[in-house]
């Protein structure tokens, strides 16, 4: 009898302590982040996988200068579903102090947590207009991470060997002509196809669509976010471009993924044109140092005007700061972001180590090392950049509606009219 009682009480004890352990764990975390003792812990949620190493390096330097601050980085992204992971963090009560916002829908979603950043140094130095993408009712809630631009990324070497000078392409017809010229010499040039558009990736399709939807929204972030319909005003031009690349693309286009498109075909001179942005530069550099320097170029798309080409360029992500944390944590988060974009060391790292196109003023533009990034920056300054309209689509629109419907068109499962109708309906429904 006695033995039994002992066992029972042991089990009771074990299960009790389990429950206690679970709950005490939580309070332990809280205590840590509230910075008892001297150290302030700032949790940072990073989505830019490509520059994780650079970010860690920057944080190491920052921490060595500010010994009372500890910055914990969680990186989720690439193939993983980063927005869901971020939301899970918030739902589970482990909300990070600094995190990345994709567009206005994120700002709306996390609105109750977000700090008004208007008095921050890094908000004041941000290039005019770049704060728009994270502002609600005139209040900015995010600091732009960098400028990214996309359009047709080309291999200038192939163009030149085919006898086409990329700088003379100043209209849609010339672009078609260039594509046809290259296609006629495929064998001599040793390429598989002119285009390597990766239609397997939903985000590539989504970005491509942005060229045609941005002018419809008056090239304004707020209009794009508030619009509850998408009418494909520039649908005809979109169809022309789509048919063009589909005809001269590496096949099967529907299963062509990012890595085959960029790392295998484009980087190895097997395709002349892909639809990507300046974020592929580090990848190209890691494979062949000279590629980005000598061969890489960017061509605009001719949408609203036949003769004026534009690319999409603007801030893609914003740093948001969580105001729900303790004051010390919020203060340190602000200081860190300010340091990153306005201190000399921070600026140097942003341009030279991250190889970002800066979204803030006061940078030495000559220090942008690769030609394409410099070109993107130039487009932006010349006001030939369009907004990232795709970041303002309704949640899930590009992956659940636009991408499948676009693939159906490419795979000849439906007509262009049907594509437009299905996509427009889904847009209004999801908004």
């Amino acid at each position, binding site marked *: 009898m006695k033995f039994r009682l002992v066992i029972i009480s042991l089990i009771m004890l074990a299960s009790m302590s389990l429950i206690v352990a679970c709950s005490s764990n939580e309070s332990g975390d809280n205590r840590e982040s509230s910075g008892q003792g001297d150290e302030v812990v700032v949790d940072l949620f990073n989505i830019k996988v490509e520059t994780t190493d650079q970010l860690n390096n920057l944080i190491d330097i920052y921490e060595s200068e500010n010994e009372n601050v500890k910055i914990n980085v969680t990186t989720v992204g690439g193939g993983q579903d980063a927005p869901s992971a971020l939301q899970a963090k918030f739902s589970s009560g482990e909300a990070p102090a600094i995190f990345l916002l994709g567009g206005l829908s994120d700002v709306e979603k996390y609105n109750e947590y977000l700090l008004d950043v208007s008095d921050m140094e890094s908000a004041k130095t941000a290039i005019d207009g770049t704060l728009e993408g994270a502002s609600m009712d005139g209040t900015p809630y995010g600091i732009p991470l960098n400028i990214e631009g996309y359009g047709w990324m080309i291999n200038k070497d192939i163009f030149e060997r085919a006898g086409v000078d990329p700088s003379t392409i100043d209209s849609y017809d010339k672009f078609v002509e260039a594509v046809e010229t290259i296609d006629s010499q495929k064998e001599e040039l040793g390429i598989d196809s002119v285009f390597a558009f990766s239609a397997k990736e939903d985000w590539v399709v989504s970005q491509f669509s942005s060229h045609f939807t941005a002018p419809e929204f008056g090239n304004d972030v707020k209009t794009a976010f508030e619009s509850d319909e998408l009418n494909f005003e520039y649908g005809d031009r979109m169809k022309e471009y789509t048919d063009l690349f589909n005809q001269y693309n590496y096949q*099967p286009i529907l*299963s062509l993924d990012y890595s085959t498109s960029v790392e295998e075909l484009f980087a190895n001179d097997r395709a002349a044109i892909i639809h990507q942005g300046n974020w592929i530069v580090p990848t190209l550099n890691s494979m062949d140092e000279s590629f980005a320097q000598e061969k890489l170029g960017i061509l605009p798309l001719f949408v609203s005007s036949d003769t004026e080409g534009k690319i999409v360029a603007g801030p893609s992500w914003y740093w948001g700061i969580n105001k729900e944390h303790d004051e010390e944590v919020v203060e340190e988060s602000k200081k860190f972001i300010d340091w990153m974009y306005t201190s000399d060391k921070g600026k140097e790292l942003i341009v030279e180590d991250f190889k970002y196109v800066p979204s803030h003023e006061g940078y030495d533009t000559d220090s942008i090392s690769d030609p394409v990034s410099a070109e993107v920056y130039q487009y932006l300054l010349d006001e030939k950049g369009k907004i990232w309209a795709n970041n303002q689509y309704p949640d899930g629109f590009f*992956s*659940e509606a636009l991408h*499948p419907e676009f693939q*159906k068109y490419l795979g000849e499962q439906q007509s262009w009219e049907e594509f437009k109708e299905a996509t427009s309906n889904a847009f209004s429904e999801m908004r």
Partner: protein
Amino acid sequence: MNFKNRTYWLFLLPTLLALLLVLIIPFFQGVYYSFTEYDGFQVTSFVGFDNYIKLFSDDQFLYSLGFTAAFSAASVIGINVLGLSFALLVTQKLGKVSTLFRTIYFMPNLIGGIILGFIWQFVFLKAFTGIADVTGIEFFRGWLSDTETGFWGLVILFVWQMSGYIMVIYISFLNNVPKELLEAATIDGANKWQSFWKVKFPLIIPAFTVSLFLTLSNAFKVYDQNMALTNGGPFGSTEMATMNIYDTAFKVQDMGYAQSKAIVFLIIITLISVIQLYITRKKETEL
């Protein structure tokens, strides 16, 4: 007696508690959310049966259910036929070799679904294209770029992964077939074929109950393999029910609606499993 009863419940307590916390409470919470509009942060409104009504006109969801059913049918047949064949092969008296084969056949089961998906993606996209380039056989070209090859790609992957596991179940039942029955059959002049169909087969029917149950419910619930191999593409035509539910919840951020889909899906799986168990149980022979 009274005390014994109490100890009984005390011993159950930790497990019950765990089940309550991670299964039962979330389940009822889920049922509740399925009647609401919920974005993962807050319930914005209570909508009654609207979500359920909506999903019966959601073409993509109905399509994905149909696709899942077709996938399950093909893979259940494939896995059981292959698993039983493997089991018969390795229960032949081959000495050390049969142990080696057992290990090899079972190995795919030890690899996680995501990795398997990527391995087979490489096989279908790169290796198959390579074969097509060398031999010129068009059959190997363009895998995963249309619905049909996407479907069979998934079936091949899943059969490859599961048949080793099912083989182990069949082996244990085959080894339990009494030797004297087989001997008697041989003396009566039965050949190998006859002794398999007339003696062994009826005795391993219980194995079918288990195997069919496992393969059927697993095939319906496949997610990671689907995600890694095709991710629903092209044009959402290889999207299974689980993926449709996940995407509704985490991409469209429509948690309430996704929850109602999940409940309907749960009811379907339960019904199918119960019916299957009922039918195969009836066929089992007692010695």
